[in-house]
C-alpha cells in the first residue's frame, strides 16, 4: 500500500534528522537480518547517543539479541548498516572502546577471578587497574576464588568486570542482573548510572521491567523484529492504557464502559478495574453516580502493563 510506504519513508527521515550523525555513538540504519527463512530484524533503525542508558525490551524472539550482536560485530546484517563510533563494529580499534556483558552458560571454571580479569585487561592498551575493576564489579574479597566456586550473582559480577576492563565508552549489557541478590543488583545499577554520568553509553536488555524503569533514559520496545514503541519510561507508560482505577462499586460494567475516556473495564469478584488516561474525570463521574463506592485506588500503570499491551497486540 502506498500509504504505508510513505509513512515509513517519513519515519526514517524524521529519525535520521532527529539523531545528528555526530552525536550518535552507535547506529543501526535500515537493518534487516534474515536467518534462512526467519526474519529476525525488519528494517530496524536504532541510534544510541552519548551519555544515555537505553533499555531494549521485547518478548523472546523479538530480535534484541540479534540487534546487540550486530552492534558488537559478531554478525553482519543481511541489509542495512551497523556503525559504532562511526566505523565498522568488527574492527579491532572499535572493539577497544566497547565492552560487552553477554549471557554465557559457562566460562572457564578452572581459572580464578583475578586471572580472568588479568587476561581481559591485557587486551587493552589503557585498561583500568585491577583494583579499579574489582571495585567497580563489586568483586572485593573473591578475586582469588576459582570461577567454579562462585555463586550465580558473583559470576555475573565477573562478567561485568570483564566488560569494564578496558574503560569502554559503549557498553552492552545482556540481562546483567540475572541471579543477583538485591544488594548486588543495586550496586550494578549504581555503576550503570555512573557510566552514563561520565558520558558513556549503555545498551541494556532485560526482562526485569523494574530495571528498565529505574535505569533507562529511553526504552525501545521490539516485537517481531520491529520497534513497536520508543520513548522515556514515563512516555511509554502513559501512551499505553493510561491509569488504573480500582474500587468496589454497584455500577455495572456496561455503564462504566460507556463513560467518556474509559479504555477498558475488568470485573473481578468484588472489585472492578477501570483503565483510563483521564482518571480524575472518570472517578468524579463514578462518585457522582454511586455513593456507595468504596475501596478506591488510583495507580499509574506498571511498565509491565504497558509492555504487555504493546507486545501482545502485535
Amino acid at each position: 500500500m502506498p500509504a504505508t510506504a510513505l509513512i515509513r519513508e517519513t519515519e526514517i527521515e524524521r529519525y535520521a534528522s532527529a539523531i545528528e550523525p555526530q552525536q550518535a555513538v552507535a547506529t543501526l540504519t535500515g537493518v534487516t537480518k534474515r536467518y534462512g527463512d526467519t526474519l529476525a530484524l525488519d528494517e530496524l533503525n536504532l541510534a544510541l547517543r552519548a551519555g544515555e542508558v537505553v533499555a531494549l525490551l521485547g518478548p523472546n524472539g523479538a530480535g534484541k539479541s540479534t540487534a546487540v550482536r550486530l552492534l558488537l560485530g559478531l554478525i553482519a546484517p543481511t541489509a542495512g548498516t551497523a556503525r559504532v563510533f562511526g566505523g565498522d563494529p568488527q574492527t579491532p580499534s572499535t572493539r577497544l572502546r566497547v565492552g560487552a556483558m553477554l549471557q554465557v552458560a559457562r566460562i572457564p571454571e578452572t581459572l580464578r577471578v583475578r586471572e580472568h580479569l588479568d587476561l581481559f585487561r591485557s587486551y587493552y592498551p589503557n585498561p583500568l587497574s585491577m583494583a579499579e575493576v574489582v571495585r567497580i564489579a563489586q568483586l572485593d574479597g573473591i578475586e582469588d576464588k576459582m570461577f567454579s566456586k562462585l555463586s550465580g550473582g558473583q559470576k555475573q559480577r565477573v562478567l561485568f568486570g570483564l566488560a569494564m576492563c578496558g574503560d569502554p565508552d559503549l557498553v552492552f549489557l545482556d540481562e546483567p542482573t540475572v541471579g543477583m541478590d538485591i544488594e548486588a543488583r543495586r550496586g550494578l545499577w549504581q555503576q550503570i548510572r555512573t557510566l552514563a554520568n561520565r558520558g558513556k553509553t549503555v545498551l541494556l536488555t532485560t526482562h526485569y521491567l523494574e530495571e528498565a524503569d529505574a535505569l533507562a533514559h529511553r526504552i525501545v520496545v521490539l516485537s517481531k523484529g520491529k520497534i513497536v514503541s520508543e520513548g522515556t519510561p514515563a512516555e511509554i507508560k502513559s501512551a499505553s492504557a493510561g491509569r488504573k482505577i480500582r474500587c468496589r462499586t454497584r455500577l455495572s460494567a456496561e455503564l462504566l464502559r460507556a463513560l467518556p475516556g474509559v479504555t477498558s473495564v475488568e470485573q473481578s469478584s468484588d472489585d472492578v478495574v477501570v483503565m483510563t488516561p483521564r482518571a480524575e474525570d472518570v472517578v468524579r463521574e463514578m462518585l457522582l453516580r454511586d455513593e456507595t463506592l468504596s475501596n478506591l485506588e488510583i495507580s499509574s500503570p506498571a511498565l509491565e502493563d504497558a509492555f504487555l499491551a504493546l507486545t501482545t497486540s502485535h
Partner: protein
Amino acid sequence: MSTPTITYHAPQSFSFARTAKIFIKETKYEFLKLLRNRSFSLAVIGFPIMFYLLFGVSNRGVHSSGIHMARYLLAGYACFGLIGAALFGIGVGLAGERAAGWLEVKRASPMPPPAYLFAKCMGAIVFGLIILTALTVLAVTIGGVSVTGFELVKMFGLSVVGSISFASMGFLLALLVPANAAPGIVNLIYLPMSFMSGLWMPIQYLPHSLQRIAPALPTYHLAQLMLGVFGYANQSSAASHWFGLAGFTMVMLGTSWLIFNRAQQNA
C-alpha cells in the same frame, strides 16, 4: 548537573610488545585452565602412562622380529598421548566454549583471534611434550630402553609437529560436532584410529584387511615418523609420511576455514 564528557582515546598504533604479551598470557591461562581441569589433565597424561606400564614395561624383555617392544611402545604411546591431548583439549574444549557462548564474549573483545588459536595449539603441544617426557622417563628407568639425546630431540620435534597437525583436526571437530556429543565422538574416532595405526601394537600383528586401511589414517603417518626415529618404520619412505601428514593438516585447516566462514555468513 555536570556536563557529560566523553574521552576519546587517541588511536592506538599496533604495538608488537603488547600483542606478544597477549599471546603469552592467553597461552599461559589456556595451559593453566587445562592443567587444573583434572578430568582432562589426569586422563590425557595418565592413560598413556598406564598403558605403557601395563604393556610396555611388562614387555621390556621382549624383542620380536628385531623390534624391542618397550621401545616400540614408547613411540606408539607418545603418539597416542599427544593426539589425545590435541583432540580432547581442543576438540572438546573449544566445542564447549563455543556452545556456552564464551567464544562470543572473546570475539566481542579486542582479543586478536590468532592469540586464541595459538594458545589452544600451544596447550596441545605442551601436553604432548609432557606425555612424551613422562613416557621416556619410564622407558629409560624401568623399561630397559635406551634413547640417545639425538633421538630424544627428534621425538620432541615430531611431537610438536604432530600436535599441530591434530590440533587442526581438533578445530574441525569443534566446529562440526555439538558440544555434548563431542567427548563421545572424539573417542569413537580416536580409539579405533589409534589402534589401526599401530600405536598399540605393530601393524604386522593386525589382520591384513585392517593393515591396508592404515596408510589412509593420519595417525599411521605420524606413528611411522615417530617409529622411524628408532628405525622401526615400515619400508615406505619418510617423505610419503610427511606428505600424508601435511596433506591431512591442510585438509583439516581448509575445511575448518570454509565452515567457519560459512557460519559467519549465516550467523
